């Protein structure tokens, strides 16, 4: 209400209050509309926040500790890599059921090379990546040249590579990995500044600030770009609120890591690969071609797109990423086991769909697939903290997966 020193009359003061209210009302209304129209894309963020909060409460605060978040990142890294590769495959309306055992086999072969044959760690990984490339070519050629459906090709691959994994480890059983560099990939942290003796990991905070600034810059540029061409944009208040929220989350997460041991190396690996693929999909010819083939492969062919070559690339990329995922998984366990790879593809596929990849093809973003990954892995992580039996974990994962896809299908129906 108007104070004594206000220059406005009570009537004018009341009007100003009214205007303020209607502005917030308008912003609120817009938020609701925004949520409704973009429901499917914001759904996963919402789900992630809900899941994390729920576990925070149920674990009495253990979930959001630095140690646990670091664990979560290391646990999720290999799934994230697989989800990136799988998203491309799914956009093209194919599928790759073999990526799990390709990952497992990759870890095993790397371990054998390093531990049993004494090969240099980098050379070992290179050799395995080439092996994965060959696998990708093999499966890709079956799909493109022979026209065997991807489901069948990769299902067969799943059997074959599972067998090869068993064979590879038959004589030795589980192989313990001793190489520090290799183990560091999914257990280590990025180094801090050498002169920093405080308990706060400076490099982490610096990276976070850079990330926030970059994010704000990109968002502002994109908004200005859209406005220049009269494309619809969110109102200023919503836009600023969004920037604030995301920046706050990034800084909070970074702080939590910084007071622990800093940014895990696995996060950097995932980040680099994510950036590369996101750039490819959104900014390059290849990306356009991928979306075109997924949206209407006949139209793409007639428009000059090399459907076979792009599809071959997708399968090669998937297998090579599966090898990287295998490295991360083996690194975290410090060992290559004969059961590595079991059901990896399930997590990858679920991550991608929860992240908004369309069941009907032609739509999907790798950045969102990572959110999907964190949805699934938070469930796993949280339920482990609560020592819930693994069978319940499967049930919950399955239910969440169905809900996410049902939502997507329904919101596309209009």
């Amino acid at each position: 209400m108007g104070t004594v020193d206000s220059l406005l009359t009570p009537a004018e003061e009341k009007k100003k209050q009214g205007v303020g209210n209607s502005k917030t009302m308008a912003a609120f209304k817009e938020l609701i509309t925004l949520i409704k129209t973009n429901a499917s894309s914001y759904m996963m963020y919402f789900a992630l926040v809900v899941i994390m909060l729920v576990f925070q409460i149920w674990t009495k605060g253990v979930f959001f500790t630095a140690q646990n978040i670091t664990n979560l990142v290391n646990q999720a890294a290999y799934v994230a890599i697989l989800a990136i590769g799988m998203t491309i495959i799914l956009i093209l309306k194919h599928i790759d059921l073999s990526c799990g055992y390709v990952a497992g086999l990759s870890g095993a072969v790397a371990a054998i090379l390093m531990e049993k044959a004494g090969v240099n760690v980098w050379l070992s990984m290179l050799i395995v990546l080439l092996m994965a490339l060959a696998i990708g070519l093999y499966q890709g050629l079956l799909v493109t040249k022979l026209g065997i459906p991807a489901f069948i090709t990769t299902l067969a691959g799943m059997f074959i590579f599972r067998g090869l994994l068993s064979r590879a480890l038959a004589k030795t059983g589980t192989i313990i990995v001793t190489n520090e560099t290799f183990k560091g990939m999914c257990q280590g942290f990025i180094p801090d500044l050498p002169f920093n003796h405080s308990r706060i990991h400076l490099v982490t905070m610096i990276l976070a600030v850079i990330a926030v600034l970059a994010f704000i810059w990109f968002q502002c540029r994109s908004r200005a770009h859209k406005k220049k061409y009269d494309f619809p944009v969110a109102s200023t208040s919503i836009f600023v609120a969004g920037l604030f929220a995301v920046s706050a989350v990034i800084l909070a997460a970074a702080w939590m890591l910084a007071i622990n041991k800093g940014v895990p190396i696995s996060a950097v690996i995932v980040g680099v690969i994510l950036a590369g693929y996101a750039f490819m999909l959104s900014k390059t010819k290849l990306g356009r071609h991928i979306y075109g083939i997924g949206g209407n492969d006949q139209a793409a062919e007639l428009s000059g797109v090399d459907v076979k070559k792009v599809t071959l690339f997708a399968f090669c990329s998937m297998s090579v990423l599966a090898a990287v995922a295998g490295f991360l998984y083996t690194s975290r366990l410090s060992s290559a086991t004969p059961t590595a790879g079991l059901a990896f593809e399930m997590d990858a596929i679920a991550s991608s769909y929860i992240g908004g990849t369309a069941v009907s093809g032609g739509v999907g973003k790798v950045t969102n697939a990572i959110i999907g990954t964190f949805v699934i892995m938070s469930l796993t992580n949280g339920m482990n903290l609560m020592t819930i039996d693994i069978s319940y974990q499967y049930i919950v994962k399955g239910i969440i997966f169905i809900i996410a896809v049902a939502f997507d299908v329904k919101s596309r129906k209009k």
Partner: protein
Amino acid sequence: MSDEYILEMRNIVKEFPGVKALNDVNFKVRRGEIHCLVGENGAGKSTLMKVLSGVWKYGTYTGDIVFDGEVQQFKSIADSEAKGIAIIYQELALFPELSVYENIFMGHEIMKGKQIDWNETIVQSKEYLKKVRLDVNPAWPVKRLNTGKQQLVEIAKALSKNCRLLIFDEPTSSLNEDDSENLLNIMRELRDQGITCIMISHKLREVTAIADTITVLRDGSTICSLDAKTDDISEANIIKNMVGRTIDDIYPKRLEKNVGNVMFEVRNLSAEDRATGRQILKDVSFNVRAGEIVGLQGLMGAGRTECALAVFGNPYKYKITSGDVWLDGEPVKFKNPRQAIKKGLAYVSEDRKGNGLVLIQDVKYNTTIANLEELVNGVSIDENKEIGVANKYKKEINVKTPTVAQKVGNLSGGNQQKVQIAKWLFSHPKVLILDEPTRGIDVGAKFEIYSIMNDLVKKGMSIIMISSELPEVLGMSDRLYVMSEGKITGQLDIEDATEEKVMKMAINA
């Protein structure tokens, strides 16, 4: 009030986010008449019929539907069908692998206790086939019939549901002349049997020939209802009401013809279908010169599209047994569409939704997809340039869309076609093949496309126009070829061409 009119739609308002598709539409149909609904694309005809048939259910629109004197509140298509309203869409809704009789009774099978009575089904299906004068074995799978006959099966299906009001949405757009004529006769017979028909069509010649009443919609409003017996139902008057202005000529005139040398030539092209061994093309030869429009006429199935695809990189892998192709003086052999595009050949597909456009992507995506090289800056695509290009063509061809970020699937048919044309123009072709460029497009947009064609040949492009619409081919071409059953059966200069001559060549086996 009600007995004369079987249907009254009163004050219908239907809105979509950002668009008022129907703005206080009033639509009255007399019992037992053939009522034609015309209007430009986006005028609201399909939307009005979707409201009537229950696709847009009660509650999603305001206003009243009064059928047989009673206000109706259809919650679904089943509701409207139960009342006797049936709608036959442009894209037929049949099951190609199932038999004719299974299709006719799909959804309302004849039962004997808990089992389907197939004998009775076959007997009754024969009755309905007789009613539509379709002489086929009801046991044949529907895919064995051509489009025209399939449409008759759809009508038989509607009759078997005891419909009293039958709605046809662009029924003759995929039919050749013979089947079109047959369909119109069937419609007349249905009318004589007391079934009321509503026909949505862009083919004004057919509309004026068959309609008892013509209602014109424009921009979601009813403009007028013309009674065939008392009002002026000339094409000129209808067009005037549809577009709100007169169109002097349906086909824009070309004042100067600047025809140069032969730009594209095909000689002795023969091809087989790999799977069946059927001869698709038999010794086809034709050419087109710079600055020329060459028409390629023929009935459905004559092989015109196959001919175009065979030279455009053969994407469906026909077995080409012979043939030479020259483009701009040099011999070419395109192994895929990409090679063809690089050399300056472009193909605007006849099935824009099926293989011409990526409907879930936006206008700027579809406009640029055939020539991304021109937008690439190092490794990445210059998005500013992309928007610039899309806007340039949007303006030049007059694509009606709020922005170039609009999904192409949301545009009307005519505007989708314009986006397709924009895509190929951006690939800077020397030879442009247009396959049924104005199919399913309203008069206004057609004129725009014809004008664009004239502009292009004035600048020296060569255009091959494949079309089933005889008046269009005669109105636009400089020369025309006629195909029949995979062969070129005739070639005519435009001065010598008459409808009779062309028809004769088209039927000639």
